[in-house]
């Protein structure tokens, strides 16, 4: 075999081996994907902060009790939106995402993060918390309290009320009298007692 054809074959083989490494230009198009860095903006970030004085779609919050939790500067006494089974279900879901790991799934303040050394939040079943206005719970979720961060930026007002409703349901569940249950559930309860 002549040296020329040998090197041609070698070159071909090398090319074959390198082929899988080829990158298409189409795989990285000149657009900014979410959270991608960008050389275009001075701070190097592709995600742009909201322009001051503008309101994003879906974020026009009316200045009423449903979004502030306050009326005439005071926390509202009762949840200002309609409470339904759907709202409670949503509250349960949101509680599981945002609250559960600190406050515990039953609300005694003994979640997993607390068991790993985070300061113990108060239980929901103290005399004080059983009697605070609903607006107070809303305000704590919104702005935080002590070591608890505020969730204003992460949970929509509607869902914050859902959580308030769920916490109220939890409180009721731990202080309920068996005689208040509907008959079929009461039968189930006595059946398990025996």
């Amino acid at each position, binding site marked *: 075999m002549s040296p020329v054809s040998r090197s041609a074959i070698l070159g071909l083989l090398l090319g074959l081996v390198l082929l899988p490494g080829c990158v298409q230009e189409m795989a990285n198009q000149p657009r900014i994907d979410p959270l991608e860095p960008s050389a275009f903006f001075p701070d190097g970030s592709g995600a742009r902060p909201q322009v001051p004085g503008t309101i994003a779609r879906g974020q026009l919050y009316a200045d009423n009790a449903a979004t502030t939790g306050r009326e005439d500067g005071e926390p509202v006494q009762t949840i200002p939106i309609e409470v339904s089974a759907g709202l409670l279900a949503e509250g349960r879901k949101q509680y599981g995402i945002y609250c559960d790991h600190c406050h515990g799934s039953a609300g005694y303040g003994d979640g997993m993060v607390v068991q790993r050394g985070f300061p113990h939040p108060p239980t929901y079943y103290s005399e004080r918390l059983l009697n605070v206005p609903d607006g107070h719970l809303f305000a704590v979720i919104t702005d935080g309290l002590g*070591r608890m961060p505020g969730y204003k930026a992460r949970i929509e007002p509607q869902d914050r009320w859902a959580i308030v409703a769920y916490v109220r349901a939890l409180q009721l569940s731990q202080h309920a009298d068996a005689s208040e249950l509907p008959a079929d559930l009461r039968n189930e309860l006595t059946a398990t007692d025996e």
Partner: protein
Amino acid sequence: MPQIFHPSMNTISRVSIFGAVFFVMAAVGVGAAIVRSPYATEVGVVRVQPVPFSHQHHVGDVGIDCRYCHRSVETEAFAGLPSTDVCMDCHSVLWADSPMLEPVRESYRTGEPLAWNRVHDLPDYAYFNHAIHVRQGVACETCHGRVDEMPLMYREETLHMQWCLECHRNPEVFLRPSEDVFAFDWEPDESTPTGEELAALHGIESKTDCSTCHR
């Protein structure tokens, strides 16, 4: 007439003919193996991250919901990654002196975001959307594997078109009821509706048109 070739040439010529066939097949095989190897598909490969964040700790042990950090996974195409504030919810108090968390604290002080290296990244010509999959009952586990057992994040699946299509041809097989989408180590029991029932309930069809994913 004297023989030009020694009889042993018979063997040599056979070996070289079969050898050539074998060589071509081996070359094809090696090529295919490279394309499917972790080197090319990145399956099982761990990326260096600014902070060695462990899903095993946070999800498996502590039990934090995916949506605490990947907030838009149910509502948007992009699942979202947590900002530094989210880490500081807990780590302003917990492990507040850990040297491992210094990059998080520094990012919090300076406002410079943490630059996570992407583990899953489709080419830009393919369109993927989390919201539709999660809402129609495809679980995180089905595509991302046992995240709750990953000390460091890696790719469970190739993300090749072939993989997408394997499911898109018969999505019923992979569906779960909506409430079990975030669960791991999940097994259906007698009361769970079958895949066909779920597909009928959500109106799920097999979607294999090119324009589904290349738009």
